[in-house]
Protein backbone atom coordinates (compact mmCIF):
# COMPACT_ATOMS: atom_id res chain seq x y z
CA UNK A 1 0.00 0.00 0.00
CA UNK A 2 2.64 2.55 1.04
CA UNK A 3 4.82 1.49 -1.87
CA UNK A 4 1.97 2.05 -4.26
CA UNK A 5 1.35 5.46 -2.72
CA UNK A 6 4.96 6.59 -3.14
CA UNK A 7 4.99 5.53 -6.75
CA UNK A 8 1.68 7.19 -7.59
CA UNK A 9 1.33 10.01 -10.11
CA UNK A 10 0.43 12.62 -7.52
CA UNK A 11 3.65 12.04 -5.54
CA UNK A 12 5.71 12.07 -8.73
CA UNK A 13 4.11 15.33 -9.84
CA UNK A 14 4.56 16.85 -6.39
CA UNK A 15 8.31 16.28 -6.44
CA UNK A 16 8.59 17.64 -9.97
CA UNK A 17 6.66 20.86 -9.48
CA UNK A 18 8.53 23.91 -8.15
CA UNK A 19 5.43 25.67 -6.84
CA UNK A 20 4.34 22.59 -4.87
CA UNK A 21 7.81 22.12 -3.39
CA UNK A 22 8.40 25.77 -2.51
CA UNK A 23 4.87 26.15 -1.12
CA UNK A 24 5.00 23.11 1.12
CA UNK A 25 8.55 23.97 2.21
CA UNK A 26 7.41 27.43 3.39
CA UNK A 27 4.38 25.96 5.13
CA UNK A 28 6.42 23.30 6.92
CA UNK A 29 8.98 25.86 8.09
CA UNK A 30 6.16 27.94 9.58
CA UNK A 31 4.52 24.94 11.22
CA UNK A 32 7.86 23.88 12.68
CA UNK A 33 8.60 27.40 13.92
CA UNK A 34 5.14 27.68 15.46
CA UNK A 35 5.37 24.33 17.25
CA UNK A 36 8.90 25.00 18.50
CA UNK A 37 8.25 28.66 19.39
CA UNK A 38 8.69 28.21 23.18
CA UNK A 39 12.15 26.68 22.60
CA UNK A 40 13.51 28.77 19.76
CA UNK A 41 12.11 32.21 20.60
CA UNK A 42 14.71 34.37 22.37
CA UNK A 43 12.08 35.54 24.85
CA UNK A 44 8.55 34.64 25.94
CA UNK A 45 6.76 37.87 25.00
CA UNK A 46 3.66 36.96 26.99
CA UNK A 47 5.44 36.15 30.24
CA UNK A 48 5.08 39.43 32.10
CA UNK A 49 8.11 38.73 34.27
CA UNK A 50 10.41 38.62 31.28
CA UNK A 51 9.06 41.66 29.46
CA UNK A 52 10.34 45.02 30.53
CA UNK A 53 9.35 48.47 29.36
CA UNK A 54 13.05 49.38 29.50
CA UNK A 55 13.48 47.74 26.13
CA UNK A 56 10.59 49.47 24.34
CA UNK A 57 10.84 50.43 20.65
CA UNK A 58 14.38 49.17 20.06
CA UNK A 59 15.38 48.94 16.37
CA UNK A 60 16.62 45.70 14.77
CA UNK A 61 20.04 44.56 15.95
CA UNK A 62 21.96 45.71 12.85
CA UNK A 63 20.83 49.30 13.32
CA UNK A 64 22.24 51.75 15.81
CA UNK A 65 20.62 51.32 19.21
CA UNK A 66 19.64 47.70 18.63
CA UNK A 67 20.60 45.27 21.38
CA UNK A 68 20.56 41.50 21.85
CA UNK A 69 18.56 39.34 22.24
CA UNK A 70 16.09 41.43 20.23
CA UNK A 71 17.21 40.46 16.71
CA UNK A 72 14.37 42.28 14.95
CA UNK A 73 13.81 45.07 17.47
CA UNK A 74 11.01 45.47 20.02
CA UNK A 75 7.50 46.94 20.16
CA UNK A 76 6.06 49.62 22.45
CA UNK A 77 5.75 47.16 25.36
CA UNK A 78 9.34 45.96 25.11
CA UNK A 79 8.39 42.63 23.54
CA UNK A 80 10.87 41.25 21.03
CA UNK A 81 9.44 41.38 17.51
CA UNK A 82 11.00 38.05 16.49
CA UNK A 83 9.57 36.23 19.51
CA UNK A 84 6.14 37.81 19.10
CA UNK A 85 6.07 36.87 15.41
CA UNK A 86 6.92 33.25 16.26
CA UNK A 87 4.15 33.09 18.86
CA UNK A 88 1.79 34.97 16.55
CA UNK A 89 2.23 32.38 13.78
CA UNK A 90 1.10 29.83 16.32
CA UNK A 91 -2.24 31.59 16.76
CA UNK A 92 -2.58 32.05 12.99
CA UNK A 93 -2.05 28.35 12.31
CA UNK A 94 -4.26 27.17 15.20
CA UNK A 95 -7.14 29.32 13.97
CA UNK A 96 -6.50 28.36 10.34
CA UNK A 97 -6.41 24.61 10.87
CA UNK A 98 -9.17 24.79 13.48
CA UNK A 99 -11.59 26.43 11.06
CA UNK A 100 -10.66 24.12 8.18
CA UNK A 101 -11.30 21.13 10.44
CA UNK A 102 -14.58 22.27 12.01
CA UNK A 103 -16.15 24.18 9.09
CA UNK A 104 -14.84 21.48 6.73
CA UNK A 105 -16.41 18.60 8.64
CA UNK A 106 -19.74 20.36 9.01
CA UNK A 107 -19.81 21.63 5.43
CA UNK A 108 -18.82 18.26 3.94
CA UNK A 109 -21.59 16.53 5.91
CA UNK A 110 -24.16 19.10 4.79
CA UNK A 111 -23.04 18.90 1.16
CA UNK A 112 -23.07 15.11 1.21
CA UNK A 113 -26.63 14.94 2.58
CA UNK A 114 -27.82 17.72 0.32
CA UNK A 115 -26.40 16.16 -2.84
CA UNK A 116 -27.38 12.59 -2.05
CA UNK A 117 -30.92 13.03 -0.78
CA UNK A 118 -31.93 16.07 -2.85
CA UNK A 119 -35.52 17.28 -2.55
CA UNK A 120 -36.63 19.47 0.34
CA UNK A 121 -33.53 18.81 2.44
CA UNK A 122 -31.38 20.01 -0.45
CA UNK A 123 -33.53 23.10 -0.98
CA UNK A 124 -33.39 24.10 2.70
CA UNK A 125 -29.64 23.55 3.08
CA UNK A 126 -28.79 25.35 -0.13
CA UNK A 127 -31.00 28.40 0.50
CA UNK A 128 -29.39 28.66 3.93
CA UNK A 129 -25.99 28.37 2.29
CA UNK A 130 -26.83 31.09 -0.27
CA UNK A 131 -27.83 33.47 2.49
CA UNK A 132 -24.72 32.88 4.57
CA UNK A 133 -22.57 33.14 1.47
CA UNK A 134 -23.93 36.50 0.37
CA UNK A 135 -23.36 37.96 3.83
CA UNK A 136 -19.79 36.73 3.60
CA UNK A 137 -17.66 35.00 6.20
CA UNK A 138 -15.78 38.20 6.99
CA UNK A 139 -18.85 40.34 7.69
CA UNK A 140 -20.53 37.66 9.81
CA UNK A 141 -17.44 36.94 11.87
CA UNK A 142 -16.77 40.64 12.37
CA UNK A 143 -20.33 41.40 13.52
CA UNK A 144 -20.57 38.36 15.80
CA UNK A 145 -17.27 39.08 17.52
CA UNK A 146 -17.96 42.81 17.69
CA UNK A 147 -21.41 42.43 19.21
CA UNK A 148 -20.86 39.70 21.73
CA UNK A 149 -17.54 40.97 22.98
CA UNK A 150 -16.46 37.46 23.93
CA UNK A 151 -12.80 36.88 23.30
CA UNK A 152 -10.56 33.86 22.90
CA UNK A 153 -9.03 31.74 20.19
CA UNK A 154 -11.89 29.23 20.24
CA UNK A 155 -14.50 31.99 19.99
CA UNK A 156 -12.73 33.39 16.93
CA UNK A 157 -12.66 29.94 15.32
CA UNK A 158 -16.38 29.43 15.88
CA UNK A 159 -17.31 32.92 14.66
CA UNK A 160 -15.45 32.26 11.41
CA UNK A 161 -17.02 28.81 11.01
CA UNK A 162 -20.57 30.22 11.21
CA UNK A 163 -20.48 31.21 7.54
CA UNK A 164 -17.35 29.44 6.33
CA UNK A 165 -18.88 25.93 6.12
CA UNK A 166 -20.83 27.07 3.07
CA UNK A 167 -17.81 26.81 0.76
CA UNK A 168 -17.37 23.15 1.66
CA UNK A 169 -21.08 22.35 1.46
CA UNK A 170 -21.44 23.85 -2.03
CA UNK A 171 -18.35 22.14 -3.41
CA UNK A 172 -19.25 18.81 -1.85
CA UNK A 173 -22.80 18.94 -3.17
CA UNK A 174 -21.61 19.65 -6.70
CA UNK A 175 -19.09 16.86 -6.51
CA UNK A 176 -21.63 14.37 -5.10
CA UNK A 177 -24.10 15.19 -7.86
CA UNK A 178 -21.45 14.19 -10.41
CA UNK A 179 -20.18 11.08 -8.65
CA UNK A 180 -23.71 9.87 -7.82
CA UNK A 181 -24.33 9.00 -11.46
CA UNK A 182 -21.19 6.86 -11.83
CA UNK A 183 -21.63 3.18 -12.63
CA UNK A 184 -19.86 1.97 -9.47
CA UNK A 185 -22.34 3.80 -7.26
CA UNK A 186 -25.24 2.23 -9.11
CA UNK A 187 -23.51 -1.13 -8.79
CA UNK A 188 -23.10 -0.67 -5.04
CA UNK A 189 -26.75 0.26 -4.79
CA UNK A 190 -27.74 -2.79 -6.80
CA UNK A 191 -25.87 -5.05 -4.39
CA UNK A 192 -28.14 -3.68 -1.66
CA UNK A 193 -25.68 -1.43 0.19
CA UNK A 194 -27.34 0.65 2.88
CA UNK A 195 -27.41 4.46 2.70
CA UNK A 196 -24.80 4.97 5.38
CA UNK A 197 -22.34 2.56 3.78
CA UNK A 198 -22.96 4.03 0.36
CA UNK A 199 -22.40 7.56 1.65
CA UNK A 200 -19.28 6.93 3.69
CA UNK A 201 -17.63 4.15 1.76
CA UNK A 202 -18.42 4.98 -1.86
CA UNK A 203 -19.58 8.56 -2.27
CA UNK A 204 -17.40 10.39 0.26
CA UNK A 205 -13.97 9.18 -0.88
CA UNK A 206 -14.74 9.66 -4.55
CA UNK A 207 -16.24 13.12 -4.10
CA UNK A 208 -13.33 14.40 -2.01
CA UNK A 209 -10.73 15.68 -4.53
CA UNK A 210 -12.30 19.13 -5.15
CA UNK A 211 -12.66 19.53 -1.36
CA UNK A 212 -8.88 19.31 -0.88
CA UNK A 213 -8.44 22.37 -3.09
CA UNK A 214 -11.10 24.28 -1.13
CA UNK A 215 -9.35 23.32 2.12
CA UNK A 216 -5.98 24.63 0.94
CA UNK A 217 -7.41 27.92 -0.35
CA UNK A 218 -9.55 28.30 2.77
CA UNK A 219 -6.57 27.86 5.07
CA UNK A 220 -4.94 30.89 3.42
CA UNK A 221 -8.15 32.92 3.54
CA UNK A 222 -8.85 32.11 7.20
CA UNK A 223 -5.32 33.01 8.31
CA UNK A 224 -5.72 36.41 6.63
CA UNK A 225 -9.18 36.78 8.20
CA UNK A 226 -7.90 36.10 11.71
CA UNK A 227 -5.22 38.75 11.21
CA UNK A 228 -7.85 41.19 9.93
CA UNK A 229 -10.17 40.60 12.89
CA UNK A 230 -7.34 41.00 15.39
CA UNK A 231 -6.19 44.12 13.55
CA UNK A 232 -9.65 45.64 14.01
CA UNK A 233 -9.59 44.76 17.70
CA UNK A 234 -12.36 42.16 17.62
CA UNK A 235 -10.16 39.06 17.23
CA UNK A 236 -8.08 37.22 19.80
CA UNK A 237 -7.71 38.95 23.21
CA UNK A 238 -4.79 41.24 24.00
CA UNK A 239 -3.19 38.51 26.08
CA UNK A 240 -2.80 36.24 23.03
CA UNK A 241 -0.12 36.85 20.41
CA UNK A 242 -1.41 37.71 16.94
CA UNK A 243 0.23 39.05 13.80
CA UNK A 244 -2.80 41.26 13.07
CA UNK A 245 -2.60 42.91 16.47
CA UNK A 246 1.15 43.50 16.12
CA UNK A 247 0.50 45.33 12.85
CA UNK A 248 -2.28 47.36 14.48
CA UNK A 249 0.17 48.50 17.18
CA UNK A 250 2.90 49.14 14.63
CA UNK A 251 0.81 51.26 12.29
CA UNK A 252 0.85 54.14 14.78
CA UNK A 253 4.64 54.25 14.56
CA UNK A 254 5.16 54.27 10.80
CA UNK A 255 5.11 58.07 10.66
CA UNK A 256 7.96 58.05 13.17
CA UNK A 257 10.00 55.87 10.79
CA UNK A 258 9.79 52.74 12.98
CA UNK A 259 9.02 50.44 10.09
CA UNK A 260 10.11 47.20 11.79
CA UNK A 261 6.96 47.09 13.92
CA UNK A 262 4.86 46.56 10.77
CA UNK A 263 7.27 45.11 8.22
CA UNK A 264 8.36 41.94 10.07
CA UNK A 265 4.94 40.66 11.20
CA UNK A 266 3.50 41.74 7.83
CA UNK A 267 6.20 39.89 5.90
CA UNK A 268 5.71 36.76 8.02
CA UNK A 269 1.96 36.83 7.38
CA UNK A 270 2.31 37.34 3.62
CA UNK A 271 5.04 34.70 3.29
CA UNK A 272 2.95 32.12 5.15
CA UNK A 273 -0.10 32.83 2.97
CA UNK A 274 1.99 32.83 -0.23
CA UNK A 275 3.33 29.39 0.73
CA UNK A 276 -0.17 28.01 1.25
CA UNK A 277 -1.43 29.58 -1.98
CA UNK A 278 1.47 28.14 -4.00
CA UNK A 279 0.60 24.69 -2.72
CA UNK A 280 -3.11 25.31 -3.40
CA UNK A 281 -2.32 26.39 -6.97
CA UNK A 282 -0.47 23.17 -7.64
CA UNK A 283 -3.23 21.09 -6.06
CA UNK A 284 -5.89 22.78 -8.17
CA UNK A 285 -4.06 22.05 -11.43
CA UNK A 286 -3.15 18.54 -10.34
CA UNK A 287 -6.72 17.58 -9.44
CA UNK A 288 -8.37 19.29 -12.40
CA UNK A 289 -8.89 16.67 -15.10
CA UNK A 290 -9.67 19.37 -17.69
CA UNK A 291 -6.17 20.81 -17.70
CA UNK A 292 -3.59 18.54 -19.27
CA UNK A 293 -0.28 19.95 -18.12
CA UNK A 294 2.07 21.07 -20.84
CA UNK A 295 5.70 20.43 -20.04
Amino acid at each position, binding site marked *: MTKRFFRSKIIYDFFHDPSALVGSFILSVFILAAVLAPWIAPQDPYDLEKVSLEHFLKPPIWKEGGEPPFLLGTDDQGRGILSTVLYGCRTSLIVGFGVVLIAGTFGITMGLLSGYYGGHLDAVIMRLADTF*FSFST*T*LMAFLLLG*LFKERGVLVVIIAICIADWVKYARTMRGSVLEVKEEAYILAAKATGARDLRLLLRHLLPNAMPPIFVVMAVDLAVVIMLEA*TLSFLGVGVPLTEPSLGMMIAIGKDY*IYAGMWWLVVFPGAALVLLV*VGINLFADWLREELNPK*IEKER
Partner: protein
Amino acid sequence: MGTYILRRLIQGAFVLLAVSFICFIIFRYVGDPVLSLAGRYATIQEREMVREAFGLDKPFYVQYTRFIFNAAQGNFGKSYVSRIPALGLILERFPATAELATTAIFIAFVLGVGLGVLVSVKPYALRNRFIMAGSLGGISTPTFLMGIVLIMIFAVYLGILPPFGRGDTVKIGFWRTGFLTWSGISHLILPAFTLGMYQLAVLLRLTRAGMREVLTEEYIKTAWSKGLPPRKVIFKHALRNVLIPVVTMTGLQFGELIAFSIVTETIFQWPGMGNLLLTSIYESDQPVIVTYIMLAALIILSLNIIVDILYAFLNPKIRYD
Protein backbone atom coordinates in the same frame (compact mmCIF):
# COMPACT_ATOMS: atom_id res chain seq x y z
CA MET B 1 -38.36 34.78 -15.98
CA GLY B 2 -41.18 36.71 -14.26
CA THR B 3 -41.89 33.84 -11.89
CA TYR B 4 -38.22 33.50 -11.17
CA ILE B 5 -37.86 37.16 -10.19
CA LEU B 6 -40.99 36.95 -8.07
CA ARG B 7 -39.65 33.86 -6.31
CA ARG B 8 -36.34 35.59 -5.63
CA LEU B 9 -38.15 38.62 -4.23
CA ILE B 10 -40.24 36.48 -1.89
CA GLN B 11 -37.13 34.60 -0.79
CA GLY B 12 -35.38 37.94 -0.24
CA ALA B 13 -38.27 39.15 1.91
CA PHE B 14 -37.97 36.02 4.08
CA VAL B 15 -34.25 36.58 4.55
CA LEU B 16 -34.86 40.22 5.50
CA LEU B 17 -37.46 39.07 8.03
CA ALA B 18 -34.95 36.65 9.52
CA VAL B 19 -32.30 39.37 9.64
CA SER B 20 -34.76 41.73 11.32
CA PHE B 21 -35.47 39.07 13.96
CA ILE B 22 -31.77 38.70 14.68
CA CYS B 23 -31.44 42.49 14.80
CA PHE B 24 -34.30 42.69 17.26
CA ILE B 25 -32.62 40.13 19.50
CA ILE B 26 -29.40 42.14 19.33
CA PHE B 27 -31.19 45.39 20.09
CA ARG B 28 -33.20 43.96 22.96
CA TYR B 29 -30.86 41.45 24.60
CA VAL B 30 -27.26 42.39 23.80
CA GLY B 31 -26.72 45.01 26.46
CA ASP B 32 -29.68 46.56 28.31
CA PRO B 33 -31.60 49.17 26.28
CA VAL B 34 -33.22 50.57 29.45
CA LEU B 35 -29.82 51.33 30.91
CA SER B 36 -28.62 52.87 27.65
CA LEU B 37 -31.74 55.02 27.25
CA ALA B 38 -32.14 56.19 30.83
CA GLY B 39 -28.45 56.66 31.52
CA ARG B 40 -26.18 54.93 33.98
CA TYR B 41 -27.19 57.08 36.97
CA ALA B 42 -30.98 56.90 36.60
CA THR B 43 -33.02 55.88 39.66
CA ILE B 44 -35.18 52.78 39.65
CA GLN B 45 -38.32 54.91 39.16
CA GLU B 46 -36.77 56.67 36.17
CA ARG B 47 -35.81 53.32 34.67
CA GLU B 48 -39.37 52.06 35.12
CA MET B 49 -40.65 55.18 33.35
CA VAL B 50 -38.31 54.60 30.41
CA ARG B 51 -39.30 50.93 30.30
CA GLU B 52 -42.95 51.91 30.03
CA ALA B 53 -42.45 54.85 27.67
CA PHE B 54 -40.58 52.71 25.12
CA GLY B 55 -42.86 49.72 25.54
CA LEU B 56 -40.03 47.55 26.85
CA ASP B 57 -42.37 46.01 29.45
CA LYS B 58 -44.70 44.57 26.79
CA PRO B 59 -44.61 40.88 25.79
CA PHE B 60 -41.96 39.71 23.33
CA TYR B 61 -44.19 39.44 20.24
CA VAL B 62 -45.68 42.91 20.78
CA GLN B 63 -42.21 44.41 20.98
CA TYR B 64 -41.05 42.55 17.88
CA THR B 65 -44.10 43.61 15.81
CA ARG B 66 -43.46 47.17 16.87
CA PHE B 67 -39.79 46.86 15.91
CA ILE B 68 -40.71 45.57 12.43
CA PHE B 69 -43.38 48.23 12.01
CA ASN B 70 -40.93 50.98 12.89
CA ALA B 71 -38.14 49.46 10.80
CA ALA B 72 -40.38 49.34 7.72
CA GLN B 73 -40.81 53.10 8.11
CA GLY B 74 -37.08 53.61 8.48
CA ASN B 75 -37.30 54.32 12.18
CA PHE B 76 -34.61 52.40 14.04
CA GLY B 77 -34.43 54.63 17.08
CA LYS B 78 -31.80 57.12 18.10
CA SER B 79 -28.10 56.49 18.53
CA TYR B 80 -27.29 55.97 22.22
CA VAL B 81 -24.18 58.09 21.83
CA SER B 82 -25.08 61.06 19.64
CA ARG B 83 -28.89 61.00 20.23
CA ILE B 84 -29.48 61.46 16.49
CA PRO B 85 -31.79 59.08 14.52
CA ALA B 86 -29.61 56.10 13.52
CA LEU B 87 -30.82 55.88 9.92
CA GLY B 88 -29.99 59.53 9.22
CA LEU B 89 -26.58 59.09 10.78
CA ILE B 90 -25.81 56.17 8.47
CA LEU B 91 -27.37 57.56 5.29
CA GLU B 92 -25.32 60.71 5.68
CA ARG B 93 -22.21 58.55 5.37
CA PHE B 94 -23.56 56.38 2.56
CA PRO B 95 -22.17 58.46 -0.38
CA ALA B 96 -18.61 58.20 0.93
CA THR B 97 -18.81 54.39 1.14
CA ALA B 98 -20.64 54.07 -2.18
CA GLU B 99 -18.01 56.13 -4.01
CA LEU B 100 -15.15 54.21 -2.45
CA ALA B 101 -16.70 50.81 -3.20
CA THR B 102 -17.70 51.56 -6.79
CA THR B 103 -14.26 52.98 -7.61
CA ALA B 104 -12.63 49.93 -6.06
CA ILE B 105 -14.80 47.44 -7.94
CA PHE B 106 -14.27 49.40 -11.18
CA ILE B 107 -10.47 49.30 -10.78
CA ALA B 108 -10.59 45.62 -9.85
CA PHE B 109 -12.78 44.63 -12.77
CA VAL B 110 -11.08 46.64 -15.52
CA LEU B 111 -7.49 45.94 -14.47
CA GLY B 112 -8.22 42.38 -13.34
CA VAL B 113 -9.91 41.27 -16.55
CA GLY B 114 -7.54 43.32 -18.73
CA LEU B 115 -4.37 41.92 -17.20
CA GLY B 116 -5.90 38.44 -17.09
CA VAL B 117 -6.42 38.52 -20.87
CA LEU B 118 -2.95 39.97 -21.43
CA VAL B 119 -1.33 37.21 -19.40
CA SER B 120 -3.32 34.39 -20.99
CA VAL B 121 -2.26 35.33 -24.53
CA LYS B 122 1.45 34.85 -23.84
CA PRO B 123 1.69 32.89 -20.58
CA TYR B 124 5.44 32.38 -20.70
CA ALA B 125 6.58 35.94 -21.51
CA LEU B 126 8.79 37.35 -18.77
CA ARG B 127 6.52 40.37 -18.20
CA ASN B 128 3.53 38.09 -17.71
CA ARG B 129 5.38 35.92 -15.24
CA PHE B 130 5.94 39.10 -13.20
CA ILE B 131 2.24 39.93 -13.40
CA MET B 132 1.35 36.43 -12.17
CA ALA B 133 3.81 36.70 -9.31
CA GLY B 134 2.21 40.04 -8.46
CA SER B 135 -1.24 38.47 -8.45
CA LEU B 136 -0.01 35.77 -6.07
CA GLY B 137 1.14 38.59 -3.79
CA GLY B 138 -2.25 40.25 -4.28
CA ILE B 139 -4.28 37.27 -3.09
CA SER B 140 -1.85 36.69 -0.22
CA THR B 141 -1.90 40.19 1.27
CA PRO B 142 -4.82 41.01 3.55
CA THR B 143 -6.56 44.33 2.80
CA PHE B 144 -5.45 46.03 6.00
CA LEU B 145 -1.80 45.25 5.34
CA MET B 146 -2.11 46.44 1.73
CA GLY B 147 -3.46 49.75 3.05
CA ILE B 148 -0.61 50.20 5.51
CA VAL B 149 2.03 49.30 2.91
CA LEU B 150 0.53 51.76 0.40
CA ILE B 151 0.50 54.48 3.07
CA MET B 152 4.12 53.72 3.96
CA ILE B 153 5.22 53.95 0.32
CA PHE B 154 3.07 56.73 -1.14
CA ALA B 155 2.36 58.92 1.86
CA VAL B 156 5.28 58.49 4.26
CA TYR B 157 8.28 57.86 1.98
CA LEU B 158 7.30 59.45 -1.34
CA GLY B 159 4.85 61.94 0.16
CA ILE B 160 2.83 62.22 -3.05
CA LEU B 161 -0.62 61.09 -1.86
CA PRO B 162 -2.56 61.97 1.30
CA PRO B 163 -2.73 59.15 3.89
CA PHE B 164 -6.17 59.81 5.37
CA GLY B 165 -9.47 61.68 5.09
CA ARG B 166 -11.65 62.36 2.09
CA GLY B 167 -10.43 65.77 0.97
CA ASP B 168 -12.73 68.50 -0.31
CA THR B 169 -16.23 67.46 -1.32
CA VAL B 170 -18.99 69.11 -3.33
CA LYS B 171 -22.60 68.79 -2.23
CA ILE B 172 -25.14 67.97 -4.94
CA GLY B 173 -28.57 67.66 -3.35
CA PHE B 174 -28.14 65.26 -0.43
CA TRP B 175 -25.12 63.57 -2.07
CA ARG B 176 -21.70 64.76 -0.99
CA THR B 177 -19.26 63.77 -3.73
CA GLY B 178 -15.47 63.73 -3.80
CA PHE B 179 -15.24 63.06 -7.54
CA LEU B 180 -15.37 66.71 -8.55
CA THR B 181 -12.33 68.16 -6.79
CA TRP B 182 -8.67 67.33 -7.28
CA SER B 183 -8.23 66.95 -3.53
CA GLY B 184 -11.19 64.53 -3.40
CA ILE B 185 -9.73 62.36 -6.17
CA SER B 186 -6.21 62.32 -4.74
CA HIS B 187 -7.65 61.22 -1.38
CA LEU B 188 -9.60 58.44 -3.11
CA ILE B 189 -6.67 56.79 -4.94
CA LEU B 190 -5.00 54.95 -2.05
CA PRO B 191 -8.17 53.67 -0.32
CA ALA B 192 -9.72 52.57 -3.63
CA PHE B 193 -6.62 50.58 -4.60
CA THR B 194 -6.44 49.12 -1.09
CA LEU B 195 -10.04 47.94 -1.23
CA GLY B 196 -9.81 46.75 -4.84
CA MET B 197 -6.43 45.03 -4.84
CA TYR B 198 -7.53 41.65 -3.49
CA GLN B 199 -10.49 41.49 -5.88
CA LEU B 200 -8.23 42.59 -8.72
CA ALA B 201 -5.90 39.65 -8.10
CA VAL B 202 -8.81 37.22 -7.77
CA LEU B 203 -10.43 38.41 -11.01
CA LEU B 204 -7.08 38.36 -12.83
CA ARG B 205 -6.49 34.73 -11.89
CA LEU B 206 -10.06 33.75 -12.70
CA THR B 207 -9.89 35.42 -16.13
CA ARG B 208 -6.54 33.83 -16.90
CA ALA B 209 -7.73 30.35 -15.90
CA GLY B 210 -10.91 30.76 -17.95
CA MET B 211 -9.02 32.05 -21.00
CA ARG B 212 -6.55 29.20 -20.77
CA GLU B 213 -9.38 26.69 -21.02
CA VAL B 214 -11.33 28.53 -23.71
CA LEU B 215 -8.32 29.26 -25.95
CA THR B 216 -7.86 25.53 -26.59
CA GLU B 217 -11.46 25.09 -27.78
CA GLU B 218 -12.25 24.13 -31.36
CA TYR B 219 -14.23 27.26 -32.16
CA ILE B 220 -11.22 29.42 -31.27
CA LYS B 221 -9.06 27.39 -33.67
CA THR B 222 -11.75 27.93 -36.31
CA ALA B 223 -11.74 31.65 -35.64
CA TRP B 224 -7.93 31.78 -36.03
CA SER B 225 -7.95 29.73 -39.21
CA LYS B 226 -10.63 31.99 -40.71
CA GLY B 227 -7.94 34.66 -40.52
CA LEU B 228 -9.76 36.88 -38.03
CA PRO B 229 -7.61 39.59 -36.44
CA PRO B 230 -6.33 38.64 -32.95
CA ARG B 231 -8.35 41.43 -31.36
CA LYS B 232 -11.58 39.82 -32.57
CA VAL B 233 -10.64 36.26 -31.65
CA ILE B 234 -9.59 37.20 -28.16
CA PHE B 235 -12.20 39.74 -27.18
CA LYS B 236 -15.22 38.68 -29.19
CA HIS B 237 -14.90 34.91 -29.30
CA ALA B 238 -12.90 33.98 -26.23
CA LEU B 239 -13.39 36.66 -23.58
CA ARG B 240 -17.15 36.75 -23.97
CA ASN B 241 -17.38 33.15 -22.82
CA VAL B 242 -14.99 33.72 -19.95
CA LEU B 243 -16.88 36.74 -18.64
CA ILE B 244 -19.84 34.77 -17.30
CA PRO B 245 -18.09 33.26 -14.26
CA VAL B 246 -16.14 36.49 -13.80
CA VAL B 247 -19.31 38.58 -13.58
CA THR B 248 -20.91 36.04 -11.23
CA MET B 249 -17.86 36.19 -9.01
CA THR B 250 -17.90 39.99 -8.98
CA GLY B 251 -21.58 39.93 -8.05
CA LEU B 252 -21.17 37.42 -5.28
CA GLN B 253 -18.35 39.38 -3.71
CA PHE B 254 -20.45 42.38 -2.63
CA GLY B 255 -20.73 41.04 0.90
CA GLU B 256 -16.95 40.74 1.09
CA LEU B 257 -16.58 44.20 -0.42
CA ILE B 258 -18.79 45.71 2.28
CA ALA B 259 -16.86 43.84 4.97
CA PHE B 260 -13.51 45.01 3.66
CA SER B 261 -14.73 48.58 3.27
CA ILE B 262 -14.92 48.56 7.10
CA VAL B 263 -11.20 47.73 7.20
CA THR B 264 -10.23 50.23 4.50
CA GLU B 265 -12.27 53.06 5.98
CA THR B 266 -10.71 52.47 9.37
CA ILE B 267 -7.16 52.64 8.07
CA PHE B 268 -7.71 55.74 5.95
CA GLN B 269 -10.14 57.41 8.38
CA TRP B 270 -12.60 57.55 5.51
CA PRO B 271 -15.86 59.11 6.74
CA GLY B 272 -18.09 56.25 5.57
CA MET B 273 -20.55 53.72 7.00
CA GLY B 274 -17.89 51.15 7.86
CA ASN B 275 -15.94 53.58 9.97
CA LEU B 276 -19.14 54.51 11.80
CA LEU B 277 -19.95 50.82 12.37
CA LEU B 278 -16.58 50.11 13.97
CA THR B 279 -16.92 53.10 16.30
CA SER B 280 -20.47 52.02 17.18
CA ILE B 281 -19.25 48.52 17.97
CA TYR B 282 -16.60 49.88 20.33
CA GLU B 283 -19.25 52.07 21.98
CA SER B 284 -21.98 49.37 22.03
CA ASP B 285 -24.30 51.72 20.14
CA GLN B 286 -26.93 49.06 19.34
CA PRO B 287 -29.41 51.15 17.25
CA VAL B 288 -26.67 52.17 14.81
CA ILE B 289 -25.31 48.61 14.54
CA VAL B 290 -28.80 47.21 13.93
CA THR B 291 -29.54 49.84 11.27
CA TYR B 292 -26.25 49.10 9.55
CA ILE B 293 -26.97 45.38 9.47
CA MET B 294 -30.48 45.87 8.05
CA LEU B 295 -29.18 48.29 5.42
CA ALA B 296 -26.27 46.04 4.46
CA ALA B 297 -28.67 43.09 4.15
CA LEU B 298 -30.98 45.11 1.92
CA ILE B 299 -28.11 46.24 -0.33
CA ILE B 300 -26.53 42.78 -0.59
CA LEU B 301 -29.86 41.06 -1.34
CA SER B 302 -30.89 43.58 -4.03
CA LEU B 303 -27.49 43.44 -5.71
CA ASN B 304 -27.59 39.63 -5.71
CA ILE B 305 -30.99 39.63 -7.41
CA ILE B 306 -29.82 42.21 -9.98
CA VAL B 307 -26.71 40.13 -10.77
CA ASP B 308 -28.86 37.00 -11.21
CA ILE B 309 -31.05 38.81 -13.72
CA LEU B 310 -28.00 40.21 -15.57
CA TYR B 311 -26.61 36.72 -15.68
CA ALA B 312 -29.63 35.50 -17.63
CA PHE B 313 -29.09 38.25 -20.19
CA LEU B 314 -25.39 37.47 -20.50
CA ASN B 315 -25.95 33.77 -21.04
CA PRO B 316 -28.98 32.95 -23.18
CA LYS B 317 -28.58 29.26 -22.33
CA ILE B 318 -29.85 29.97 -18.82
CA ARG B 319 -33.58 30.07 -18.51
CA TYR B 320 -34.82 30.35 -14.98
CA ASP B 321 -38.12 28.56 -14.65
